[in-house]
């Protein structure tokens, strides 16, 4: 990861900008159901097993900042919200884009996720015809400026 960030530094013009976006290590993703403007269900996705990857990403950014390759200008959190009309539609979407399916799924976690989605489905069915299920991913976006003083170029 550090090498990739150093390569990005090389490709950027001096004082160029790196925008780095990744899921928050501090806030796991969760699922909500909304009906008629009211929140009727909210539970975290039990399959949040990539904390180590996220910590490594944070560590890689910290390393290039320490080395002076980039300077951190600004950072903020936001929620990426994916809306669907049904649990099936949402899960089909994640399967299509290849997200949130662990490489080595633990049976208990996957069962926990199925149960969580079962409860979300029940909340949807109890709601109005326009009820929505929403997958919420807390994320962090950082702006880093490429330092012209570092001699890793070329």
């Amino acid at each position, binding site marked *: 990861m550090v090498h990739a960030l150093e390569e990005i530094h090389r*490709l950027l013009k*001096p004082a160029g900008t790196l925008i780095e976006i990744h899921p928050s290590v501090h806030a796991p993703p969760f699922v909500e159901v909304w009906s008629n403007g009211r929140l009727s269900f909210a539970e975290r996705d039990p399959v949040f097993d990539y904390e180590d990857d996220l910590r490594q990403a944070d560590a890689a950014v910290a390393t290039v900042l320490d080395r002076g390759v980039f300077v951190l200008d600004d950072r903020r959190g*936001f*929620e990426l*919200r994916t809306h669907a009309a049904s649990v099936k539609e949402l899960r089909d979407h994640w399967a299509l884009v290849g997200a949130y399916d662990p490489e080595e799924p633990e049976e208990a976690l996957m069962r926990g996720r199925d149960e969580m989605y079962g409860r979300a489905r029940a909340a949807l069915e109890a709601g109005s015809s326009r009820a929505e299920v929403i997958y919420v991913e807390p994320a962090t976006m950082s702006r880093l400026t490429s330092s012209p003083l570092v001699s890793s170029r070329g």
Partner: protein
Amino acid sequence: MAIRTDPEGNETAALFDLVDLDGTEVLEIGCGDGRLTWRYANRAAHVTAIEPFEDSIARAKERLREMKLPVEFRHVNFEDFAAGAETDIFDVALLSWSLC
């Protein structure tokens, strides 16, 4: 109802708050299915959007097919792309959910 990703515009609001993309040369690393690309590309002079997964880049091309946006999609991983790229060519690099 089709899937809607970030209809609130939270991600683009944060992006536009952090960087002025007007007239810039942008490299988007890990563009996926173009979920974010189409939302900002009209501000840039040119976007090079790379993605290692063939299915994803095919969906990205399909998504942006009707839009007249200055985007060049490339099916390549970052390591190979960087190995063949010159130095000092982009104003902005967007590392989109790809560092982990």
